[in-house]
């Protein structure tokens, strides 16, 4: 009995909600970024699972979207972490609770 599409989707939904958990319930900025990366990876898994089980697996659309999504996630992680470092230099804190002013 090989795994069906619904099993893969359940795993990806679980990963997404764990990522959401990390992004919503922690106060350290880097934890939030970890949660966002987990959510992006779960969405990629979703794309590839649908590509594999879908009606036309010979067209590589799902794989292409996943590749571009990985590239964009890397760029976003880089800029997000640069922001965290810049904020740390200015405010000496990484807790997002303390970042509540629009004026620096």
């Amino acid at each position, binding site marked *: 009995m*090989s*795994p*069906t*599409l*619904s*099993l*893969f989707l*359940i*795993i990806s*939904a*679980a*990963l997404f*909600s*764990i*990522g*959401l*958990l*990390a*992004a*919503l*319930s*922690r*106060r*350290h900025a*880097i*934890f939030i*970024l*970890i949660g966002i*990366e*987990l959510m992006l*990876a779960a969405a*990629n898994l979703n794309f*590839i*699972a649908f*590509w*594999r*089980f879908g009606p036309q*697996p*010979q067209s*590589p659309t799902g*794989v*292409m979207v*996943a*590749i*571009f999504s*990985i*590239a*964009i*996630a*890397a*760029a*976003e*992680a*880089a*800029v997000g*972490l*640069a922001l965290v*470092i*810049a904020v*740390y230099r200015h405010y000496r804190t990484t807790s997002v609770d303390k970042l509540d002013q629009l004026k620096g």
Partner: protein
Amino acid sequence: MSTAAFTVIAILTLAGALAAASLPKLIHAALCLVIAFVGIAAFFFLLGAEFVGLVQVFVYVGAVAVLIVFTILLTRRADEKTGGFNWGGVVIAIAVFAGLIWAILQTPSLSLPAPLIEALTVKRIGEVLMTDYIWPLQCVGLLLTAALIGGLILVMEEKP
């Protein structure tokens, strides 16, 4: 596709992700995130998309995880309290999970087994990238350049 491999990889990935979300020390959470990423790459291999699995290991584990641990290193404080845990987030996450599971289980067409396909070679991915997806490729290139320049400007120290 074997169920034994699927179960093992699923347990590994979910354990890594849960550890990444809930461990108190940041560096342990970042290293468990690496386990979760490797597990997701193993899923990609299981699903027959080997190139994406290799790119996942290369980019996420080799670059994003190294970035995260470097940032943890550079923003360390001696009196490190990682702040309290916000239980409202747990409730929302469980609600989202329940909603997604309900939507998945309602759909009957998702319980079919996998069709047999021919393997997607790297050559085919290359051909498609250069013909059908040339515009997204250029846009992603532009985006990565912008991210590179932006990241450098954000952390460059101003000359005194």
